[in-house]
């Protein structure tokens, strides 16, 4: 698949991101600001965010709707670029990186989990995970990734044949199968009931623990913050609080 997909318009990023030495922190944001032009109105989604994400940290990013947390996540994941400020991944400046370099960053280092799963409906659970493992250097096998999220019995089911929680766990398996440095989860339980949501959070916690991926979960649900190493509070485009949990709780113990 890698062979099949490599094209001239997408030059190999070369000795880019992967070649940088493993230094702390993994990701560093400096004075990130993002302004959207919505017709006549200028929306300032981020107004100067400074942030450092350490290796293996499980971070919950809390914020009300409109606080700018999705914008921040999109920028951290290389889906969007800030209007001003800098984002540095292991010494490499992503703010000035070209589109193809950002694609390579996503491909090689970032795992995404979305609120609405975004599985490919024409592929089975196993095949949805394989989409990512086909691209990665030394991935988990799709079966191993699905085993981590507890879906070994659903390998050959299509998304339409699975529940929402199962679909979200396939999405997590897909995100972690490449052993990403960074796992970004945007409201992963937003579309799920409590019981299913806990299963999904447990899967995220397990991945963070076992693979050591720096994990960011954004949510408006403050209870979820209890499972984090570190909690960031975002309001009106700025980080208003940054605290460490003295002890983090198992997702199974969470109640909301």
């Amino acid at each position: 698949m890698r062979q099949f997909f490599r094209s001239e318009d997408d030059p190999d990023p070369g000795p880019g991101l992967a070649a940088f030495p493993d230094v702390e922190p993994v990701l560093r944001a400096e004075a990130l600001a993002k302004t959207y032009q919505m017709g006549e109105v200028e929306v300032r989604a981020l107004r100067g965010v400074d942030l450092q994400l350490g290796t293996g940290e499980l971070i919950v990013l809390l914020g009300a709707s409109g606080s700018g947390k999705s914008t921040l996540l999109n920028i951290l994941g290389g889906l969007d670029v800030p209007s001003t400020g800098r984002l540095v991944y292991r010494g490499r400046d992503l703010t000035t990186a070209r589109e193809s370099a950002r694609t390579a960053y996503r491909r090689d280092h970032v795992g995404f989990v979305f609120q609405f799963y975004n599985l490919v409906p024409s592929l089975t659970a196993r095949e949805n995970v394989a989409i990512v493992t086909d691209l990665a250097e030394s991935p988990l096998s799709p079966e191993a990734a699905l085993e981590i999220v507890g879906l070994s019995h659903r390998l050959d089911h299509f998304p339409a044949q699975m529940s929402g929680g199962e679909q979200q766990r396939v999405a997590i398996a897909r995100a972690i199968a490449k052993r990403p440095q960074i796992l970004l989860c945007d409201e992963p339980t937003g579309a799920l009931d409590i019981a299913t949501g806990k299963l999904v959070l447990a899967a995220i916690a397990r991945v963070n623990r076992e693979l050591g991926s720096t994990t960011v979960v954004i949510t408006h649900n403050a209870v979820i913050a209890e499972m984090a190493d570190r909690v960031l509070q975002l309001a009106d485009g700025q980080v208003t609080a940054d605290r460490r949990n003295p002890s983090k709780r198992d997702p199974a113990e969470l109640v909301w």
Partner: protein
Amino acid sequence: MRALDRKLFRDLARMKSQAIAIALVVASGVALFVATMTTYRSLRMSEAVFYREQRFAQIWSGLGLGRAPLSVARDIAALPGVTAVDARLVARAILDVRGLDVPASAVLVSISPRPEHPLNDLYIRRGRHVEPGRAEEVMVSEAFAEKNHLGPGDSITATVAGHRTALHIVGVALSPEFVMPVEPGSAAPDDQRFGILWIARDQLDALLDMRGSFNDIALGLAPGTQDQPVIAAVDRILAPYGGAGAYARVNQASHVMLEEHIVQLRGLTLLVPSIFLLVAAFLVNVVLARLIATQREQIGMLKAFGYSNARVAIHYLELTLVIVVLGVVLGMPVGAWLGRLMAVFYATFFRFPTLVFELEPAIAVGGVAVAVIAAMAGALGTLRRVVAMPPIVAMTPEVPAFRRTLLDRIGITPLLSSATRMIVRNLTKRPLRSGLASAGMAFAVAVVVLGGSSADGLNRMRDVQYEAIQREDISLALDHPRALGTARDFLALPGVRQVEPYRVVPARLLGRGHNEDIALYGLPDGGVLRNVVDTAYRRVPRLGAGVVVTGWTARRLGLVPGDLLAIEIRENHRRVVMARLDATVEDPFGEAGYMELGALGRLLGEPQTYSNASLLIDPTHASALYDQLEHAPHAMAIAIRRSTLEAHRAMSEAPINFIRTIVVVFAIIIAFGVVYNTARIALAERSRELATLRVLGFTRGEASRILLGEIAILAAPAIPLGLALGYRLAGAVAAAMTGSRMHIPWIVSPSTYAFAVVVFAASALISALIVRRRIDRLDLVEVLKARE
């Protein structure tokens, strides 16, 4: 404007490029319909006006080599139903035209002075009518005058019945009898080398020494008069004078040629536009189906708020109609313009005084009607689904439910890459739609094949006629049949290397309830300069004792090889002889019968005679030979194969290039319409999926390839399918265009196939690249926010 109407226009604005693509296909169909229809009507009306205003005759009879006294014409005029007769003289002439290095031929027709023209009045384009008593005045036919830059004041030298005479041109004229002048015995027009000369009766009397007699007669009939009794009576009256058999308009050479083309056009008016309207119907179907799939919730909401099923259906129908109206508005003027261009092309072959051309309201209404009907047909299934959607169902999103397919069960899918798996599952999920998309693309290929096949057919006809059937350099028609031994005399002329005599005699084949007038050829055994070809265009090596005719003629007469055939010989004394039908053969440009020369001579009771000669010449002596032939006392007409061949090639080149250009433009429109819409719909359905893949690290190229790979898989079978379909359509068009004289072969050349593939592949590629730009610009963040 009501809210629902506002929604209609906003929806249209959002899907504008798809709407335009459909409108263009509709416009193509409408344009072709209007163009072929107006050209057809233009020829019909121009013909009718010309025939009426110039009083085109209804019955003709020649007297071959004989003559009849003018008193006989009065007997014919007295026949019931006959309103007018023109008893005239017609002769062949060889012309020496200044500036033309080969001899030309003409038919000389005597014309009575104005204003007492009862029939076949001339339309004087330039100069004036000939006047009696003024020596050596002629009018020339327009095409011949144009090609040779002749006009009033110029002179030409003619050899008529062995007399060489200078003729002064006083006018350039058109006649309803010679709308497309073709030399008798020739397969195709050669306007440079053949013309009609009209000369005052008293002048031709003197040249032919036929004062007080006539050798050709034209009759006008009262409205409602039956042809057949008059024809029989004329035949009876003229029989003692060598009457070659009377015939009605349906057998008049110029009229036949004109009708052939008009019938060909009528065949095209329905067939070709319907291809486009079929594709338009398909596009309306898929695009509308996609639109209502994305608007399920809106439909549910409208119904929940009390809009009736009919109102909601009408809303989507209106959307379709706006696209159709756009197509009609674009197509109508283009059709009128194309029609005018086509009519102008026809006007270079068919000489009418005025080309009547108008976009008749009925044609415009017809164009609108076919477009609307096609779109309705495309919209119908979708509208039914809109009506059937209950509000509750409509408001829940449609989940694409994939299941394991046959490919999964037989274990093929694990061997495929994820991308290929996605493509295969998407295509097999909607097999009908995938099949229709391929079929739509196949039509684009087929249209190019169809456009090229007309040129291929025409080229093949020309090759068969001038490479296989006629191999001589020059063919001569003699004034009278002569003894076979004299043929060798031609070898004494400068540059003549080989001579082959042959005999041509006008004949009527008498079948069961049906007769066919043909030229019956007697070809020498072992001859190579005039040949007969079979239906596969292979040379028939030997003619037997019987007769061979074209398969078409045999079918019309209800005869099969082995049957006895009655042949009425229509030269000198008419008589009926019997011959066996040996085989059927091919004759692309006309109706002819063939026999062995000796057998024909015995049948005619004139053994060892010939009337024509084929010559092979040394081109370095050509001009000396032409000089001699122009003075030759027994030569009545000269045909030069190369000249006719070149004239035919020159004549057909412009229309062929024109048709090819039009067809390529329209094929591109179809290819674009289908490929672009298919890709846009696939993109709409899968933008979320593709955006997800981009987020997961797929590059733009990788993501595009999933969608474009799907299009490529749909396009791949479209090519062989389209080539096969094009071949079939070419056959249908060839059949629709084949009249009684011209047999358009059903042929598609390899270069036409190759051209079709190139045109389609290029336009499909470009359409796909336009969609690729959209994939590149997918807003990843926006797409992920949206719920299914």
